[in-house]
């Protein structure tokens, strides 16, 4: 699977199960009791992951920076009512996804959020574990092909229904478990399982032209989600 730089992993313990609070929850409680430095520490500890989730959802850096600020402003405002019932990260990611989705919906309604749909360092010559399809069929300028492919993948992800997209991003790139994703989306783990499967099917359909001729003929019949088109 992916090699995200995020230090968040599926193996991270849920401290609440042991009757303890995770570090962020303890910082929130300290902030509640008036320690301003605790809030700053929360920002420093979590901004990278929040930024990553938001960037993957909204697709550009300028908006991501503004939205991350919005997320932490909400954390600040709601700190008084915060209760460490769930993991702090779950609570924080729920705020982050809500803020990002609101921005995306506003953009769809016509508000101006510039779309510079490129991932950072996408032009870098990184070795991608691309193994499907016949490499000899690819254009000789492999980096151009890779750039086009990245663009197509981004568009395929963007075309996914909201919950499939969030589930896929949180699972694939942030390495969250089904349980954590379910908590963020407010649904069951079975629903997450279904969402991720449908996301994979939709991505497979959207990208089949780029996954090699052998790949296409193996496609089974399955339900395709409404609105997801081949790109």
């Amino acid at each position: 699977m992916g090699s995200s730089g995020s230090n968040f992993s599926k193996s991270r313990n849920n401290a609440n199960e042991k009757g303890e609070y995770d570090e962020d929850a303890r910082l929130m409680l300290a902030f509640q009791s008036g320690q301003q430095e605790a809030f700053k520490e929360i920002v420093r500890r979590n901004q990278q992951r929040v930024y990553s989730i938001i960037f993957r959802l909204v697709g550009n850096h300028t908006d991501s920076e503004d939205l991350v600020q919005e997320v932490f402003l909400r954390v600040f405002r709601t700190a008084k009512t915060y209760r460490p019932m769930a993991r702090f990260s779950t609570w924080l990611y729920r705020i982050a996804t809500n803020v990002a989705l609101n921005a995306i919906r506003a953009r769809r309604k016509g508000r101006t959020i510039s779309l510079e749909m490129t991932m950072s360092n996408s032009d870098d010559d990184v070795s991608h574990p691309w193994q499907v399809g016949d490499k000899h069929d690819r254009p000789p300028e492999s980096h151009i092909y890779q750039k086009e492919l990245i663009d197509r993948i981004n568009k395929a992800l963007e075309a996914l229904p909201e919950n499939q997209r969030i589930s896929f991003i949180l699972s694939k790139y942030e390495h969250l478990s089904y349980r954590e994703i379910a908590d963020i989306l407010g649904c069951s783990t079975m629903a997450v399982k279904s969402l991720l499967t449908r996301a994979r099917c939709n991505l497979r359909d959207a990208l089949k032209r780029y996954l090699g001729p052998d790949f296409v003929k193996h496609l089974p019949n399955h339900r395709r989600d409404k609105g997801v088109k081949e790109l």
Partner: protein
Amino acid sequence: MKQSDLEQISAWMDGELPAEQANRVAQLVEQDDDWRAAYEQFRAVEQATDMLAETIVPPEDLPERIIQSVYRRRRIMKALRIGVSVAAAACVLIALWIGGVFSRQGVRQPTAVIPQDTSYVIAKIEKKIDTIFKDVSPEDRFIVQNLTLFKEYPRIEEYRKVAEIVDADTLSALEALEGARRL
């Protein structure tokens, strides 16, 4: 393949199946062509999307900018709240002042001084009027008791007639009576 089979493969790839189910899916993927094909397709999607798996690095100064922004917006909100409170208080004061002015303009004060106990005063004045008008015909008495109305038309005969028989004290008592009734 059924959606539920695809879900099994997807969850297996994510490491979300219990050991027993995971072993079953692993066997099916190994032995069954359809299962293997479906798995290969999902794997291809995984490999393709791995291309976007690089770490998203925020600007170095982002944490400080977030903190500054949060505290700046908090200050603005605080100032706004104070401003709104002051404005609301000012509105209330203005409303009270305007209400006071109108109420002062709206209440007509009686021309004669009326003590607080108006019923007592009315009874006393009515008694006085009865004494004064004991020899006056009922028509004239009616005119006198509606003096304010007839004062609006001072030329009419009835008023002049009444004015002749009613002295200044009586007029003042009648006006006082009218004022007291209005209270």
